[in-house]
């Protein structure tokens, strides 16, 4: 289990606001909308991944992990993106057992990122 402290300690480093600003072209309103969307979207992807593992459905696993990775990249969340890519690749292998083992880590990284989003952007980043 991840403790509340662990979440906080990594929260800032899990997001690269500069990447997010470049992608959105400095549109703060758009960025706020994306921030608001991420928790629900990621939860949807994690649930899809869980079901795919349970059903041994490789393609669905790959697709859901791919989408989660793409969402993470919007905020420059490289650690989460790396975890999601790993899961995406596992979806192409014959067994989903390894994926089941990596699911917890993926959840942790997702939670950390959501916590970082909650913390909001550093002062002076808002334009």
């Amino acid at each position: 289990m991840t403790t509340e402290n662990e979440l906080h300690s990594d929260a800032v480093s899990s997001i690269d606001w500069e990447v997010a600003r470049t992608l959105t072209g400095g549109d703060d309103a758009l960025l706020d909308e994306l921030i608001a969307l991420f928790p629900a979207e990621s939860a949807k992807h994690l649930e899809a991944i869980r079901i795919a593992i349970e059903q041994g459905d490789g393609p669905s696993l790959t697709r859901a992990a791919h989408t989660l990775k793409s969402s993470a990249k919007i905020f420059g969340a490289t650690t989460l993106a790396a975890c999601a890519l790993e899961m995406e690749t596992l979806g192409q292998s014959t067994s989903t057992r390894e994926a089941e083992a990596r699911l917890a880590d993926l959840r942790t990284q997702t939670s950390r990122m959501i916590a970082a989003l909650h913390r909001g952007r550093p002062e002076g980043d808002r334009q």
Partner: protein
Amino acid sequence: MTNNNDTRSARPTFLVVDDDPMVRKLVSRGLADLDPEEVLEVEDGLAAQQVLLEKNVDVVVTDVLMPNMDGRELMKWAQEHRPEPLWIVLSGLETFDAAVDALHLGAFDYLAKPPEVQRVRVAVRNALDQIELVRERKRLYEQIERSNAQLAEKVSQLVKLCRMLEEQAEIIQADLNRAEIIQHALLPQQPPDIDGWCVETLYRSGSSVGGDFYDVVLPDNHHVGLVIADSAGHGVAAAMLSVLFKLRLKFLDNDGNVLMPNRVLKSLNRRLHETMSAPGTFITAAYVLLNRRTGDVRIASAGHPPCIWTSPAGESRLLERTGPALGLVADARYEEISVHLDIGDRLLMFTDGVLEGGPKSPTHDDLANALLSTTDRSDLLGKLYQAATQDIGGDRDDITMILIERGEGVSRFDDTPQPGERQQVQPSTAPVRLLEGVESKHAFLSIAGTATWIRSQAFFDAANKLLERCGNLTIDLGACEYLDSTFLGTLNEIVMSRPDVVHLQRLPRKIRALFEELSMDGVLSHTNFVNDPLPQEMEPLQRAEVDVARQGARMLSAHETLSSLSEENRELFLDVVESLRSDLDQSGKG
């Protein structure tokens, strides 16, 4: 820009296909800056199919990896069912192969995932420019195709008109041929038998029906009447004048007494003047009344070339005209000349075709010398005819000669050309050569060969341009073989638009005949008596492109001009003018 046909509005419609709403938001944000009609978002290929079937989408931005139907499948389907939109593919590095695949399927561009708003905007802007280019090119192609079709239509109309003009020319030629036969029938068939006198005649019409006429009559037992006449002009009008002449010719008074030549011409003149109303129509004629017993001769001549008298002693005399041509003055008076013919004396009457044919045509002296020579009487006229027609290539005037000699022998009328002597009218095919030149502010245009409608607009433009620059314009027709009706009408317009400064010169007889046939009297009255020498440097007219509509307008204008000259012209060109007018009306509306 929401349709693949012409009803497309100017603003574009976009479709974003991605299962991640966050990516869709980024893409849509980039598209919003391009002033779209609509930005549609769907989350997989199946939903996209539905939208593409219902809407006219300009650009699709699609993910590759999606549930239900992925991007590649969607594009394959669209290639067949909705080929109009341009495609931009979103791809992460891991799906790069799939993106290359998509490009092979015809995608316009691809964007790395997640896409930057800015890059989306640039890629889609490029796609819209591409669409505009393709559309513009298609529009231009269609325009060219329409123009080509119109051009082909115009060409076929011109060809049709040409055929119509050719057909009319054939009809006119057929009429001329019939008129020639009728005119021939007016001539005396058999020489009368006159003891102690021989009469030789030779008659050859020009290339078309002519205006010469002659007759040898015995008004009573004591006299022989010899008459020769030449109607002004050429063609049917001149032939009709000959007919009129024959109808009005009277040798006896009401009591059956022989009329003296001055009386014959005076009465003929009065009758013809009453009948002939058109300006420029007149007849020259000479009447010789011979007392066959005494050899006394009385001659009256209405503007006709002189008769020539010779004696075996070597004397000769020109017997000139004794009054004006017939039909010009209402109450003309005619003097008489008297001569006496002894044994061996000869008297020659002839029409001006003998003198005016070509460079080697005989002079009066040549004719007198021929009469004085020892040449056998029966060969004399044939030899004179040969001399008169030597080195004449094209058209020539009618030629008529009457020779009377006091002495025994056989009289002979010859009105039939020998084999090979007959002049054939060949449609001239000499290519046209139009030249222009200027000398001391005096402009010159020359027409050589056969000039037709094809160059009429260029000639018209050149004439107007020269008239803007120069004070005078002389149009030289010395080497002109033929002018078609459009070119004739165009010449009429040029001359009559500036009658004070435009003149024609060196009109060949056949071209003059064309002018006369179409009642172009105005143009004829602007012919130089003294020819201006052409400048040393004459340049060919520029071969400028003339568009079909202007060419059509030129043909119409030329034929309208000709139609305005006489009622006959109006009827002659009625079909042509109407047809041209409706063509131009239609092209004006088109």
